């Protein structure tokens, strides 16, 4: 039953999902662009953000505190991970980096499973955004609308950090040529640590913001990670604008296809990725070079 309200509501769902994917993918892509490491534990970061926020929410009852606590916790975890392990992998082959982050991701998921069990945890939306909103032509869950707004603000903040600060300038320069940045007398390792923290925080933030939309399980990050990969391949690795564009495209494809048959959502997503790979192998907004 395809009707206009149905379509519009799916388009809104796609926007919400797309914005979320854009945020998570931005984290993944700036880490890869700057450090040259693809973090396969990124999905786990998303999941941990949700759980950390969930705990904070239970203790304080404040959703804002939950969002802040969840993001900060994941940022600290990211910094710790970079300092203790990732740092020793910069000069090792890509495969080793993939293996170690993959292993860490599994460890994180299993630790959470150990503490919270595999059962799903329900996080209710903050009171302000509960219920549904009448948009005039249709009714839509208020919190999903709020997600679009919250994530847009987060993306805006990330944009400001990347394009309007000294750190952002170094990060963008590092994506172009990290050796050169190093020889300009900037301590790239400290920058790497900060970038890893910010990238992880983006995933953690998305994790807690998304928690009221879906229920929390230890495996919630796995599917997201796969979708994030598609987003990054479509948008172009290392490109922040590419992550946003790719995220929105992927979100809409998943939502609109799900309206017809959810089983084909991934097939369509994959078809889109293949098309991009054939037409523009470096992604829609990616540049040739880094591989």
């Amino acid at each position, binding site marked *: 039953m395809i009707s206009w309200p149905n379509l519009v509501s799916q388009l809104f769902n796609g926007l919400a999902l797309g914005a979320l994917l854009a945020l998570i993918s931005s984290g993944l892509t700036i880490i890869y662009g700057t450090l040259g490491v693809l973090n396969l534990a990124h999905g786990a970061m998303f999941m941990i953000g949700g759980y950390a926020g969930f705990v904070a929410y239970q203790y304080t009852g404040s959703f804002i505190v939950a969002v802040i606590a969840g993001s900060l916790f994941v940022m600290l975890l990211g910094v710790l991970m970079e300092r203790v*392990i990732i740092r020793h992998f910069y000069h090792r082959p*890509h495969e080793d980096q993939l293996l*170690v982050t*993959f*292993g860490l991701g599994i460890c994180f998921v299993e630790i959470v499973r150990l503490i919270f069990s595999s059962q799903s945890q329900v996080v209710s939306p903050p009171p302000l955004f509960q219920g549904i909103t009448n948009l005039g032509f249709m009714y839509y869950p208020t919190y999903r609308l709020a997600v679009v707004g919250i994530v847009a603000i987060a993306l805006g903040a990330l944009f400001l950090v990347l394009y309007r600060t000294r750190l952002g300038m170094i990060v963008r320069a590092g994506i172009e040529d990290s050796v050169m940045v190093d020889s300009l007398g900037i301590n790239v390792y400290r920058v790497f640590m900060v970038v890893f923290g910010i990238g992880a925080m983006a995933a953690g933030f998305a994790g807690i913001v998304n928690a009221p939309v879906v229920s929390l399980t230890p495996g919630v990050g796995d599917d997201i*990670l796969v979708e994030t990969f598609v987003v990054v*391949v479509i948008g172009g690795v290392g490109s922040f604008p590419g992550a946003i564009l790719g995220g929105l495209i992927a979100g809409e494809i998943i939502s609109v296809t799900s309206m017809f048959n959810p089983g084909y959502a991934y097939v369509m997503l994959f078809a889109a990725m293949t098309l991009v*790979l054939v037409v523009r192998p470096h992604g829609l907004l990616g540049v040739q070079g880094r591989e």
Partner: protein
Amino acid sequence: MLKQRPFLIETLTAIGLIAAPFVLPHLGFAPNTVNRILVWGLFGLGFDILFGFTGLLSFGQSAFYGTGGFVAAYLLTRAGFGNVLVALIIGMIAAAATGYVIGLIALRRTGIYFAMITVAIAEVFYFVEFNPLSDFTGGENGLPGVPMPSFNLGFTTIHFTDGWSLYQFIALCYFIGVIIALRIVRSPVGAIFSAIRDNPLRATAVGHNIHGYKLTAFVIAAAYAGFAGGLLGVLQAFMPPDAFTFDTSGQLVMQTAIGGRGTLFGPLVGAAVWLFLQDFLQAALDLGAAWKLVLGVVFVLLVCFLRGGIVGGLADLYRLVSGKRARKEAEQQTEIGAARPLPAPMQAREVAHPAYSGPILKATGLTKRYGGLVANSNVDFSVDQGELRGIIGPNGAGKSTFFKMLTCEIAPTSGQIVFEGRDITGLKVTEVCQLGLTKSYQVNQLFTGLTVRQNLTIAALAELRGKFRLDLFRKLANVKGLSEQVEHTLALVNLTARADTQVAELAYGEKRRLEIGLALATSPRLLLLDEPLAGMSPRERVETVKLLKSIARGRTMIIIDHDMDSLFELVQRVTVLQEGRVLLDGTPEEIRTNAAVQEAYLGGVNGEIAA
């Protein structure tokens, strides 16, 4: 390692498989566990060829495992197919065909892109199995009732039931799988696989179509996965839908890394560790769900500290013990090798069309622009057959860019390159090398993880076998002329005594000579040398000039270098490049005394130096 005894590994495998049912029960292994380990091991044989040998880390092998498994299971349960073995083989072929199509897409990119794309593809298969194809695959119920294999030998019928009886069948499959895998990794194709892992750029440059070989490795891995998937259904009498999950791919990757990549037996060892720990931690220690966390931690520690996994670690240990003696012998040999006679020069490969007698290389109007920067502008350049040409010019004159255009590593913005009367503009570097034009690099591009001999073998194979050939079961020793060519090149570049040394352990000067040797082993008729003397000590320079003179017979060479004394001694004519243009062309004597050249090099701010 262990190369002296030809069938040692095969024999040991057979002995191990025969002994297993008598030994393993005492160690607490149930027959079903052993069978599962063998299925994982077989799955891993193909994956190790892809990951360990070719260096392509795929996180999507579940797609082929599931495809092979469900095709076989569907044939046996729904389609009324009676013969288990034929069903398994059809499943394997289906998986290999799927692998071919997926490989075409996934191999468009390398490195992390490849990993990401394979993950995404496997996820698609998972969803397709559950939804659009659930009529065929049983959706989340899987396909129950997969029969056990039985063989009618005419006089009697052998039934494999469960437990150790089924073990015989699976062990036989694994053994055949090992033999095939060993043949593949010891074949010329196997040698090229490791070249791709070590340095894809150079593998391309010496004349191998690496895309074709990568696809081959991908299809091989898919075929192994498909067969193993079918065996899983037979083993459990049920084809579970979770064969398609990401966890399956992940477990395979982890088992391979735990056991040791690039060892073929690593995945088997990894699976044994995995399944044993799983049973042990869950049952004996009552850890419940925490077993996976323990395995995850073990895995991370292994990746951090023992890159070669368990088998790799044992091999290192073995080498540490036996290595000291071997090194001593090698050192003695080096001393003997120092006073060697100069080997006969190596002939370039025969000219494809001997009738051609014009200049061997002719470039007209060659221009390369990078945005606003003009690296080369309107270069006209011609070299005669058998000529020795030098190219000099200040830094940034566009010499290396010019070479890259000649070997077709980069495409010129405009202009034309003709090699032996044939327009090669726009060809790929692999094709150009196959035609007989190659270069040695300014910065060493070697296969650093391999030995000197293996390096030269890879280059020689490109000439002897062409850019792509699927001789998967041929022994390297059976490639005609290969060992002669490799030995000859070794002697020419004076590395015979170091033939079995890892490239990473060579001294810089030796690496430089190997760099030239790699280009030489493809028997080019036109050899470009980009700063062959760079970074060498004065003594090494003298040696290398001698080497270059000896290989110059019967072939054309163009040499870029900054060491003008050596270069002028070596070459017949010199071309001077400046700011991307040809400044002058002449004999070394003319160049030496030319005012414009002196000005180009020394700056000549006021034009006084020229006077």
